[in-house]
C-alpha cells in the first residue's frame, strides 16, 4: 500500500512529489509517457511570472507570487538554469496604459515587489529594441526565465533520490474507492493507495471524473512558438509582454536561459494532443511580436513548436479535494510553471487536511549538480578531460555538449530513454543544427546504453522510432 499516488509527472506532479518526499510518506508517481516533463511542461514560454496577472484573492495569485520566489530558490539549490531578468508589459494606447495601472494595482495587492510603471522612453532605455510606439510599460523586477524541463527533472529526481518511486509508461485507466483509500487501475496493473493526487495536466478533468462528480472541463488551448538562434538571443534582455486580453497573456519576446530568443504564443482552442503548428498561427505570432520588438530577425528561427495549456475557463486553478483522500491539482494553465513549487506545498497541506501524516525526514537530500562543459573555464575543462576523456569529445557542436555529459545523464535518478530525453537533460540537439549533426551519435550512445539495436531507439515518445530497418536486408527491404 502506497501512501500517495501522484498521477502525472509534469512539473506539477514532480513538484508535489518532491514536496511529499520531504516527509516519511511513501510516494509513487505514475507517468503515462516514457519520460517526465513531456506534456505542457516542455512546451511553454519558460517564464517565471512575477504575479501581477492573477485576480487578487485567488489561489492563483497566492501560489504565483510564492511560487516565483520558491522556484528561484529551488533552481538555485538544484542547479537548474534560471535568471531573474525582470519583465515588461507594454502599452501602446492610453487604454492599455490604463490596463498597466490595473495590473500594477493587482500586483501590489498580490504582494509582488518592485513593480513600477515606466514611460516609453524609460522602457526603451532598459530595452533599446522596443518599438517607438510603446507609450508605457509595467516593470516587474522579480519575473524571470527558467529551463522548464530541467526544473521538472530536478524536482522529480529529488523526489526519487528521497525515496519516491517513478513508474513510466504507466497510464491510469480508472480509480476505485476502497476502504483505506483508492485502487488505481493502470495499463500495468492495479496500485493500492491511501491518497491520490491528480496532476494529469490537459487530461486532469478526465482523471477528476474517475474519482468525483464532473465539475470542470479542460478546454485545451494551443500556443505556437518560435525559437530563434543565439545570434538573436540578445535582442531583449527581459521578458517583453503585451497587455493581456481574455485570450491570455499575449505574445511575448523573451531571452531563454539557453541563450536563444523565444517568441510566442498565440492561443487557439485545440484538441488535447494537438501540438502541431500552423502557418496562420506562426504568421500571427510573428506579426504580433514585431509590434513589441520590430527588429526580431525571424530568418534566424531554428525551431517552431506548440504546447497545449490546460485552460478551464475559470480564472483560477482547480485545486481542491473533490473526494475523500483525492486532491485535484487541475486546470493548471499559466502561470502554472511558476506556481509549481507552491502548488506542491499546497498539495501537501491539502493531503494533511485529509489525514496524511507529515513527518519530516531527517535525511532529505536537496542538492543536485551536473557538469556543464560549455560553462567551464579552460582550466576546469582541461582538468575534467584529463580525468575522464569522454568529456573531451564534443558530440553536440552547436551547444558544446560532450560525450561525458551525455553518458553521465544515464547515471541520474531518471535516465533518458530517447534522443529528446538526452536533449532535455544535457542540451544536445538544442542548437542551431537541431540535432542534424549529433542525432546519429546520440542514437549510437542510446543504443549502447539501453542495450537495444539503433532501430529501437526513439526520438521522444515510445513509438517514435527513428530508423526503419538495416540496409542489406535483401528481398525483405524491397
Amino acid at each position, binding site marked *: 500500500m502506497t501512501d500517495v499516488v501522484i498521477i502525472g509527472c509534469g512539473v506539477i506532479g514532480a513538484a508535489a512529489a518532491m514536496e511529499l518526499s520531504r516527509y516519511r510518506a511513501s510516494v509513487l508517481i505514475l507517468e503515462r509517457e516514457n519520460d517526465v516533463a513531456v506534456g505542457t511542461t516542455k512546451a511553454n514560454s519558460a517564464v517565471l511570472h512575477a504575479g501581477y496577472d492573477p485576480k487578487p484573492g485567488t489561489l492563483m495569485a497566492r501560489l504565483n507570487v510564492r511560487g516565483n520566489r520558491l522556484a528561484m530558490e529551488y533552481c538555485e539549490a538544484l542547479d537548474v538554469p534560471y535568471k531573474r531578468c525582470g519583465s515588461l508589459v507594454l502599452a501602446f494606447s492610453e487604454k492599455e496604459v490604463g490596463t498597466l495601472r490595473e495590473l500594477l494595482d493587482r500586483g501590489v495587492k498580490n504582494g509582488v515587489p518592485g513593480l513600477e510603471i515606466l514611460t516609453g522612453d524609460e522602457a526603451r532605455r532598459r530595452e533599446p529594441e522596443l518599438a517607438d510606439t510603446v507609450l508605457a510599460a509595467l516593470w516587474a523586477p522579480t519575473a524571470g526565465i527558467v529551463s522548464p524541463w530541467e526544473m521538472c527533472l530536478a524536482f522529480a529526481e529529488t523526489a526519487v533520490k528521497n525515496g519516491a518511486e517513478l513508474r513510466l509508461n504507466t497510464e491510469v485507466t480508472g480509480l476505485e474507492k476502497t476502504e483505506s483509500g483508492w485502487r488505481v487501475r493502470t495499463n500495468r496493473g492495479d496500485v493500492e493507495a491511501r491518497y491520490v493526487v491528480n496532476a494529469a495536466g490537459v487530461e486532469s478533468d478526465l482523471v477528476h471524473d474517475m474519482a468525483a462528480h464532473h465539475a470542470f472541463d479542460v478546454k485545451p488551448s494551443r500556443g505556437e512558438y518560435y*525559437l530563434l538562434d543565439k545570434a538573436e538571443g540578445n535582442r531583449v534582455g527581459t521578458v517583453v509582454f503585451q497587455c493581456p486580453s481574455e485570450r491570455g497573456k499575449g505574445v511575448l519576446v523573451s531571452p531563454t536561459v539557453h541563450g536563444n530568443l523565444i517568441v510566442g504564443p498565440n492561443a487557439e482552442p485545440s484538441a488535447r*494532443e494537438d*501540438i*502541431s*503548428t*500552423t*502557418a496562420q*498561427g*506562426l504568421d500571427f505570432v510573428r506579426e504580433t511580436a514585431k509590434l513589441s520588438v520590430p527588429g526580431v530577425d525571424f*530568418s534566424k*528561427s*531554428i*525551431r*517552431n*513548436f506548440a504546447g497545449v495549456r490546460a485552460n478551464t475557463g475559470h480564472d483560477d486553478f482547480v485545486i481542491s479535494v473533490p473526494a475523500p483522500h483525492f486532491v485535484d491539482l487541475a486546470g493548471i494553465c499559466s502561470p502554472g510553471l511558476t506556481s509549481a513549487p507552491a502548488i506542491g506545498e499546497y498539495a501537501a497541506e491539502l493531503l494533511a487536511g485529509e489525514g496524511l501524516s507529515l513527518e519530516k525526514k531527517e535525511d532529505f537530500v536537496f542538492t543536485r549538480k551536473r557538469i556543464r562543459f560549455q560553462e567551464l573555464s*579552460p582550466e576546469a*575543462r*582541461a582538468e*575534467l*578531460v*584529463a580525468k575522464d*576523456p*569522454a568529456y*573531451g*569529445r*564534443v558530440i553536440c*557542436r552547436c551547444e*558544446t555538449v*560532450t*560525450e561525458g555529459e551525455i553518458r553521465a545523464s544515464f547515471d541520474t535518478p531518471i535516465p533518458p530513454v530517447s534522443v529528446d530525453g538526452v536533449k532535455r537533460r544535457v542540451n544536445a540537439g538544442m542548437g*542551431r*543544427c*537541431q*540535432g*542534424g*549533426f549529433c*542525432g*546519429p551519435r546520440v542514437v*549510437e550512445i542510446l543504443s549502447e546504453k539501453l542495450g537495444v539495436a*539503433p*532501430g529501437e531507439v*526513439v*526520438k*521522444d*515518445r515510445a*513509438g*517514435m*522510432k*527513428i*530508423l*526503419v*530497418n*538495416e*540496409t*542489406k*536486408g535483401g528481398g525483405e*527491404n*524491397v
Partner: protein
Amino acid sequence: MYDLIVVGGGPAGLAAACSAWDSGLRSILIVERDRELGGILNQCIHNGFGLTYFKEELTGPEYAHRFVELLSKTGVEVRTDTMVLEITGDLRIHMTGPETGYRVEEARSVILAMGCRERTRGAIGIPGYRPAGVFTAGAAQRYVNVEGWLPGKRVVILGSGDIGLIMARRMTLEGAKVLACVEVMPYSGGLTRNIVQCLEDYDIPLYLSHTVTDIRGRDRVEQVVVSEVDERRRPIPGTEMVFDCDTLLLSVGLIPENELTQSAGIRIDPRTKGPEVFENMETSLPGVFSCGNVTHVHDLVDFVTQESQRAGAAAAKYVLNGPAAGESIALRNGNGVSYTVPQRVRPENVEKVFNVFFRVNRIFGPSRIVVSAGERELCRFKRDRLAPGEMENITVPVKLLEGVAGEITVSVKEA
C-alpha cells in the same frame, strides 16, 4: 607555436595543409573533429568527384583517400577526434578531444576549413507536427551509408539540392520508395546530371515551384502536404497534394559553419555567410585564411581543392614572407550576381591573374559576364547558360585593374 593550424580535416583542410607543406611550411597541425580525416566525403559514397582535378571519376571516400595519402607523405601533424572550440583574435586555438585533452595552441597563421551544415526544418518553418521521420538529407546519408540503417520506406524529399537528389537514388536502391522531390524554386538547386541519374533514372517526379505546407503524424510522419507556390513563393490554396509517407528528407541548403570565425572577430559576408576574403583567401584578420564550404558553399569538391590549395600557399607565403601588401579593390555584385568570392582584390598581391567565383540569382540563357569599373568595361566572358545551382568562375588578368580604384562590378547581361 605552429606556423599553421588548419581547422578541419575535410577536403578543404587536407588540400590546404598539403599545399602549405609544399610551399615550405614545416610546422603544420590539422585539427579534425571526426575520428578520421576526409570530412563529409566519407559519407558521400556516390561517384562524380575528381573529374576536374584528377580527370577521373571517384567516390567521396576515394577522393578523400587520395589527399590522405598525399598528406601522409608530408610531416603535417594531425589530431583527429578533436574539436576546436574557440579561435581568439591573437590566434590562440582552444581545442578538446579525448586523446588531445583540452589545450590551447598558438599559431602564426590559421586556415579555416570547417565546412558547412545543413539548413533545418526550423530554418524554413514548415508547420505541422514534429514526429520522427524528418531528417536532413545529410543525416539520412550518414545513417544509410555509414551506420547501415534505412531511416524510412516511403519518402518525400523537400529541396532539390544535390544531397537530396543523391539520397533519392540511394534510398531507392536500398529498397525505399521515393514518392516525390519537391522544389520551391522554379528551377532545381542541384546539378542537372543529378536530376537525370538520380530522379529520372528511377522515375521519381520533381515538382518545381512546390513546397511542403504541412507535416502530419504525431509519432512518426504519416503524411506530408505539398502545395504549389506563386512567384513570391507563397503556397497557392487549393493546390494541395497529400503524400502518404513515413519520411521527409530536407535538402534545403547549406550554411557555412562560421561560429569560430565570429569568435575571432572576423568579418562575415552576409551573402555568402562566410568570411570576406581577399584574392588569396585571407580574411579580415591578417594571417587567417579561409577555404572550401566555410567560405562559400561549392557544388564540386574539385573547386574546393583548388581554392584550398591557394589558401595553403598563401598562408605559407604569409608566414615566410610577411603580410600581403597593397590597397584593395572591392568586388561589387552587379545585375544577376548574388555574391562573389573573393570580395576584395589587392592587385599588388596578384602575379598575373585572379579567379572570381560567383553565383547568379536566376537562370540565364546565352549571356555575357561583364567585369567593369564604373562605366568602363574591363573584360567579358561568354556563357551559354547560367544557373544559381552551378557556381561560375572567371579568370581576370590583373593588368586590367591598372588605374582602377575603389571597386569593380561583376554583372551578367543576357544576350
